[in-house]
């Protein structure tokens, strides 16, 4: 693994925002994130009073509820040099939307903005802030990559995961057709409008099948659970993993939704 030399000297203190879906469904992604952050020369802490970024409330139009959750997140993560999340959508929530919910509270708004400036999605943080250019990982499979919407369009993450995946030994990348089109997860959308969501994820799993890849990767657990759930329901053998697992070389566990 290689890190740009000017990034090695400082040793920033990173607070890992685990995200609720990683906490519950895929703890290994959290540990992969810690490993990658430490490889990139960071000191990592995982403050335990963390819960959720507040997106379910925010996107349901509940401003008061969002404020309560956002306040908790801000208080817990303020002491760190950086906040890093293995999710584009949770990182974007803190980075782009927290300030919006405190529009009539000058003090909290300023604190939200200060935290936003130090908040990053994991893979883009490794590449842009830590200068990571290669990994030590080995993953001898053909993979394809789904660009999760928030990471792609709110945070501009497109090349970062591809650049690092390119350095994983044995990994063969096949681009996914319409990789930038939503998989149909959309938080509460997928349970509120299951039939529309299904049509969207069907398009996605067809594209995945057409890519011929053995494993599909993405950077957000929401999309991954949705795609894995549909692939398994369809009886597909394609496996689903978070990109951090592959970059950290932590792929011994079964893939998402697969047997022990």
């Amino acid at each position: 693994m290689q890190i740009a030399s000017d990034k090695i000297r400082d040793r920033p203190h990173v607070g890992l925002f685990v995200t609720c879906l990683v906490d519950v469904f895929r703890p290994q992604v959290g540990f992969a994130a810690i490993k990658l952050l430490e490889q990139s020369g960071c000191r990592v802490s995982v403050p335990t009073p963390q819960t959720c970024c507040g997106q379910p409330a925010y996107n349901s139009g509940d401003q008061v509820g969002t404020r309560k959750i956002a306040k908790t997140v801000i208080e817990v993560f303020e002491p760190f040099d950086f906040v890093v999340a293995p999710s584009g959508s949770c990182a974007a929530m803190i980075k782009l939307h927290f300030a919006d919910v405190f529009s009539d509270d000058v003090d909290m708004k300023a604190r939200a903005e200060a935290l936003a400036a130090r908040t990053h999605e994991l893979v883009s943080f490794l590449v842009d802030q830590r200068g990571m250019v290669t990994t030590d990982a080995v993953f001898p499979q053909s993979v394809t990559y789904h660009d999760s919407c928030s990471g792609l369009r709110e945070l501009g993450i497109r090349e970062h995961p591809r650049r690092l995946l390119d350095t994983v030994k044995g990994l063969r990348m096949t681009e996914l057709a319409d990789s930038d089109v939503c998989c149909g997860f959309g938080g509460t959308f997928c349970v509120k409008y299951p039939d529309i969501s299904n049509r969207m994820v069907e398009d996605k799993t067809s594209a995945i099948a057409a890519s011929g890849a053995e494993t599909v990767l993405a950077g957000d657990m929401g999309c991954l659970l949705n795609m894995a759930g549909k692939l398994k329901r369809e009886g597909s053998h394609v496996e689903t993993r978070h990109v951090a697992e592959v970059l950290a070389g932590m792929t011994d566990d079964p893939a998402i939704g697969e047997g022990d």
Partner: protein
Amino acid sequence: MEAKTHAFSANVADALEDEPLQRALQKLKQGFVVKRREAIDNLPEFERLRAEGQAIKDHTLGHLDLYLEEFEAKVAAKGGQVHWCRDAGEARKKILTICRSVDARTVTKGKSMIGEEIAINDYLEENGIEPIETDLGEYIIQLRKEPPSHIIAPAIHVPKEAVADVFRETHTDLDPERSLEDPRTLVDEARSMLRQKYLDADVGITGANFLVAETGSTVIVTNEGNGDLTQSLPGIHIVLASLEKVVPTLEDASTILRLLARSATGQEFSAYTTFSTGPKRPDDLDGPAQFHVVLLDNGRTELLASESREILRCIRCGACMNHCPVYGAIGGHAYGWVYPGPMGAVLTPALLGIERSHDLPHASTFCGRCEEVCPMNIPLPKLIRYQRRKAFERRLSGRVGRWGLALWVAVAARPALYRTFLSVLLFCVSLLRPRCTRFRWLPLASGWTKHRDLPAPATKSFFQIWKSRGSNSNG
């Protein structure tokens, strides 16, 4: 048209079962989307134009009264007349009064979304005047007695075989032996039917893509030339437009025109861009004797003062719906009124009221593709979220969803409680886990498991493992 926005779920179920519609939607994804991409790639100054377009609209909206008054004065100076209409009812009555003044029997119509918004065709029919749509797509759906399903391609849901069927049904003089398989023959057939209608019409109604304040001109873009015949052959031309269509100068209109067709169909320019300024002058060879502009507010002044005002920059290109994966799954009719897709999810609740249309802003994944392609830089997800806030404040979503959310917020804002809650949940799951790596069914989760498995949660959460390893907690 009658709003069916409240029946969204039923509309969606119909749309997903509608195979011709689904085939049409697949084509849409490959058609407009690809063509727009190519057109934008060939225009290096696209981003600059987009910023200019946004600035023009923002400036105009900031001085709307000024530019509308200037527009009215210029129209009057050229011999035309502007009629200010507060709502759909006023606009309908005004149009009827103008039609009655010449005992109009038939009216030709160019494509106009405002015409749909005020349901002018139904109203004219009820009052004994026959409206005839002259845009091919609009003509087809008028024969089929349907609303448009797309703002620029109103009959996109109709396969060509169905067009042939409706022509055979309604064109009584049509030779039954004549083949209507080729789209060309369908166009010829419509043209031959419409030709006489243009000549017979007493009044021509068009919409407007722009109203130009400095000249009092109205502008339409079409690909069929039907607008020109509609507005220049009858004795009266009525332009039906909402008030945010005004721009200060011809130069401003040309800037936005460069964005419009590229964003809509991927064309550099529409086949016809027609500027109309006042009625026929003494030396003109043709043109209408009277020129009226029916200027509709219908909730827009209120919208201008609201947090959703940016939607008034919309130029009706349709790019947001062409790129919307939800529109791509269900098409336009499911949205239940005139404006579908992301712009409709903002505009419909703003115009009809959120009570009747709260499903529209909720049926979005916030994927952001609409904002990415909008030539006017309208932050559509943000505006859609504003509508969700309104719906939440008025408790319009289902009780189960609201209570579930309230529970989630209460737990998520209390980290200790949250951990306990998760431990209990994961303990319950761990009882099942040895046999179960994913669920095909779960109580209260049928929305998920109806179409996909749910990967089982981990037996131990990240934080349980983290704690058991005795790792640091606060640095």
